């Protein structure tokens, strides 16, 4: 009796999971983007990262079980100009030879109603880890869903732009970060 019951339960759980609309796991890098905006002398300057890898699981039926981990290759930065790209590698900024990556790991995802969610997690950058909370919207699509999020990062929390660059009147402390992650379901 017992093995049969186990089988039945397994079947039931399989049936249940296939009944879900989708579970998104496969990230589509070409349709995903991470961008940011800094302010220099009051002037908004657009930037972004070209290379990053995302591991994620999201099932709209079970958002609390969702998770995301994003790893950004800091060498792929576009900081607005070639000069700024080069400068950002230095010790006062990312100190990239020691800390080549930024890593975000989600800790909790909460449904806010509609297709809106709140994601909490930890961003580790330049050896410092800080908790972040950000809204994420889920946009279902035919072949892939898109997850859009935005948050404000305070660069000095991570020691980004130290020494002469610490003056926030020249380069603002707040950096607006936006991301769009596209993932196909199965």
């Amino acid at each position, binding site marked *: 009796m017992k093995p049969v019951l186990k089988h039945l339960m397994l079947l039931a759980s399989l049936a249940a999971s296939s009944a879900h609309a989708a579970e998104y796991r496969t990230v589509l890098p070409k349709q995903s983007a991470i961008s940011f905006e800094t302010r220099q002398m009051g002037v908004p*300057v657009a930037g972004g990262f070209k290379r990053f890898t995302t591991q994620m699981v999201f099932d709209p039926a079970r958002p609390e079980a969702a998770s995301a981990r994003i790893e950004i290759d800091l060498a792929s930065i576009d900081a607005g100009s070639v000069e700024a790209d080069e400068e950002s590698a230095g010790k006062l900024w990312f100190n990239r030879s020691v800390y080549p990556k930024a890593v975000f790991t989600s800790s909790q995802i909460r449904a806010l109603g509609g297709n809106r969610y709140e994601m909490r997690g930890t961003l580790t950058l330049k050896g410092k880890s800080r908790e972040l909370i950000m809204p994420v919207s889920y946009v279902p699509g035919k072949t892939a869903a898109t997850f859009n999020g935005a948050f404000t990062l305070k660069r000095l929390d991570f020691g980004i732009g130290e020494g002469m660059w610490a003056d926030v009147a020249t380069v603002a402390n707040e950096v607006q970060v936006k991301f769009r992650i596209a993932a196909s379901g199965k």
Partner: protein
Amino acid sequence: MTPTLRYTTPAVVLHWLVALLIFVGFPLGVYMHELPLSPVKLQLYSYHKWIGITVLLLAGMRVAWRLSHRPPPLPDSIAGWQRQASAAVHGLLYLLILAIPLSGWLMSSAKGFQTVWFGVLPLPDLVGKSRELGDALATLHQILNFTLLGLVILHVAAALKHHFIERQPFLQRMGWSKQERT
């Protein structure tokens, strides 16, 4: 009635304001672009842009003044070729004080840095970000500026020559004193 030999007060004020801003903005531009990236460099670039946009605004006012006024006539002793040269140089100077800030503004946009006047008033980006266009506009900005430098030297030299060598009250044309109306 004898013709006035002096530009009107608004024209004189605008002339010297623009001159002053160029005498600050030009060396600033030459100096700042060689600097390694630093907060000071970002600050100087902003100040340079603010100066340039101010010049553009004042230059627009000067052109409006010039289109609606006649400059005081040149003394009869001035030779015909000098009159033509004077008209050409003045025309080019008016053109350059408009074109130089404009080329700087466009360059800034092409390089992906919007111009925000005094850090408060964002000017629209009239061109999109483009490496090639940015470099081309930088070269243009430089050529126009060194043309301006040459013309300003000519302009100042001619005024000083007429004033001190030919002993005609040339500097009073752009002077503050209204007593030169004779």
